[in-house]
């Protein structure tokens, strides 16, 4: 199983990604997908600008994917993360995990998102509806806590 990892400016199509993953095979029983979308925060935002660290973004998501593949019996794993300006309602990130059974697919997708949030080198900046440039979005300690769920108990 070779994970598919892409960092791109363009939008992505979930159905096409699932079709590519499952084409010509009948051993997949469960596909879990996550899509992260840009919110307008009650109309406050006109866009998010996503900055990333080219090279490391692919490498780091690849390392997270390799961990997921080692941990669950996956038949497919896809992570697509966009950069550049993204408007409210648009898609930012996609994670897809396929397995014979649902538990592995759910856990792997959940794990991927938690680690992508805390380890993938992307930074969001707000553009406000009033035309001004907003601040950099602050990291949530929630996200660190979420990622810690996957670590072995001390």
């Amino acid at each position, binding site marked *: 199983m070779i994970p598919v990892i892409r960092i791109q400016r363009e939008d992505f199509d979930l159905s096409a990604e699932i079709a590519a993953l499952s084409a010509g095979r009948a051993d997949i029983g469960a596909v879990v997908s996550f899509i992260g979308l840009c919110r307008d925060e009650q109309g406050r935002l006109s866009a998010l600008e996503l900055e990333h660290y080219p090279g490391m973004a692919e490498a780091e998501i690849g390392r997270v994917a390799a961990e997921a593949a080692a941990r669950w019996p996956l038949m497919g794993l896809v992570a697509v993360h966009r950069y550049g300006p993204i408007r409210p309602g648009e898609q930012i990130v996609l994670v897809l995990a396929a397995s014979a059974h649902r538990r592995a697919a759910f856990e792997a997708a959940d794990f991927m*998102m938690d680690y992508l949030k805390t380890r993938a080198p*992307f930074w969001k900046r707000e553009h406000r509806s009033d035309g001004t440039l907003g601040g950099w979005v602050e990291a949530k300690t929630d996200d660190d806590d979420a990622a810690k769920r996957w670590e072995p108990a001390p």
Partner: protein
Amino acid sequence: MNAVSPMATSATRTVRLVYFAWVRERVGLPEETLDIPADLATVVDLVRWLKARGENYEAAFARETLVRVALDQHHAKPQSPLGNAREIAFFPPMTGG
């Protein structure tokens, strides 16, 4: 002080420093290539050396623990040895996904 010879302290090595998000804005550069003292052992040593270079670095690293680092595109910690890293990146906590 005998252990540290003048020659050793003046030895340098060349690294590429890259900055992202508000670290980039405060430093005022997206990246730069610098000759750093070869005897800087850890990330913290490098950060303190950078802060002595100017106010822009002072501002970027004002809260040292808030800035994250990657050595050759691998996450590292303040106490991590710099080793032979050629590309050293500084950035805020990630907010992707």
